[in-house]
């Protein structure tokens, strides 16, 4: 009797059997867009149920390395995907499905009058960056270095969210995050574009995993994400097609 409540792995499966489930681990910065992508995908493929697992790319990679029963991995950077590939967790080859550009985030009304990367050297401003070990921090430093700006950093935030929170609260005058983050942050935040020459590009790889329970459905989902339909949704959320 009770066995019907659990699938063969013992994990809790509330959906009726017979339906394919795709477990997608996606980076935190993909939260909003993947929610929409999955519902689009589900309505196009009624037999498939997409379950999303959002966390930092590193945490997701960690789970995969520890044998989590995940079908698809969408990372916010290449290095975490690379680690998964090296550990033999990836079926086939990862594909880049989206790109993202950096933007300067300032509090609404731009009270500190920030205009570009040069302002990051102004010591009277409260400046924040992501920590260099996460993609947004790495890329931001790359962009600043390209311009020869030595930023006077007041806060090194462990992730985009923490950085945005502080800019939004007015604790920081400016920070560098992704365009997509600023686009969908609250009204309390404004974005300042970087000239394309100054910008650096972040790449988002996706892959089906060797551990996948429903490899076919997983492949379908990955294919969908790379499709034109999905790309236009990604575009709406500020991502750039690869």
């Amino acid at each position: 009797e009770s066995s019907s409540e659990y699938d063969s792995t013992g994990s809790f499966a509330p959906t009726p059997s017979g339906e394919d489930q795709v477990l997608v681990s996606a980076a935190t910065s993909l939260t909003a867009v993947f929610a929409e992508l999955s519902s689009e995908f589900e309505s196009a493929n009624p037999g498939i149920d997409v379950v999303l697992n959002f966390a930092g790319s590193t945490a997701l990679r960690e789970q995969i390395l520890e044998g989590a029963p995940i079908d698809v991995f969408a990372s916010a950077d290449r290095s975490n995907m690379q680690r998964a590939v090296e550990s033999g967790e990836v079926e086939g080859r990862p594909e880049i499905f989206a790109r993202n550009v950096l933007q300067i985030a300032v509090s609404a009304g731009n009270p500190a009058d920030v205009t570009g990367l040069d302002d990051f050297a102004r010591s009277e401003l409260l400046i924040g960056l992501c920590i260099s070990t996460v993609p947004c921090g790495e890329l931001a430093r790359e962009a600043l270095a390209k311009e020869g700006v030595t930023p006077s950093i007041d806060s090194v935030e462990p992730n985009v969210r923490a950085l945005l929170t502080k800019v939004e609260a007015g604790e920081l005058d400016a920070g560098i995050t992704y365009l997509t983050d600023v686009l969908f942050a609250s009204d309390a935040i404004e974005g300042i574009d970087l000239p394309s020459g100054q910008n650096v590009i972040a790449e988002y790889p996706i892959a089906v995993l060797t551990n996948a329970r429903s490899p076919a459905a997983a492949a379908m989902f990955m294919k969908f994400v790379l499709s034109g339909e999905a790309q236009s949704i990604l575009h709406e959320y500020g991502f750039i097609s690869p």
Partner: protein
Amino acid sequence: MPFQQRSITTGRSPILLVVLGLTGLTFFVVPLLGLLWRVPWKRTPDLLTSQMVLDALRLSVIASLAATAISCVIGVPLAWLLARAEFPGKAIVRSIVTLPLVLPPVVGGTALLFALGRRGLVGGPLNQVTGLLMPFSLWGVILAATFVAMPFLVITVEGALHNLDEKHERAAASLGASRWMVIRRITVPMIAPSLIAGLALTWARAFGEFGATVTFAGNLQGRTQTLPLAVFVALESDRDAAVAISMIMVFVSLIVLIALRDRWWR
């Protein structure tokens, strides 16, 4: 009670105490006000009925209560052993119990993965023999919550047991009560307020658990996504929703804590 005396000891409280106590209270009230100030009250009802929030609420309530129950069943005996039994290595055991308190929850979750994941120390063999898989299931959520929350119960109850004079337990034994009966009818009732405080702490910690859960059990809506995880997701996509979900958590916990404590105290 009509014949209750006005308590004399408590008639007037020393000024210094009141001042310090109020300062303490400010500590809690000001940030709460800060939060309340930003709550998008209009949107809250809608959010409350969204599938994601309902799923998360259900999971949170189940997992936190289960974790509290498990902690009670195995944590209270552990506390009793720590307080009353003599065995070698007690100091070490006591310290181990305290570890989950200190370990950053994310590391705690990683430790759980290392130990109970499919490739883990215990989880690996377990998975091969029984096919059981802890992570990414409700069991994983409960396990993670129990791991981080149980120490609160153990430590609170152990403290209370140290406070309790053993003479009543001895008297009960002399009346023929078995060791077990003494614990059930004398020891536990006599430390009830501390036990309930410990349960409240445990439940609250389990209910608010995030780091270990997201690492060990994942963040699957309807399966392992509890309210704090929903808040995390919402923080990325919809800031107001995150604050609103937090207020739901606050509200639920008020109900549970009041039920747990004010009903059984006094």
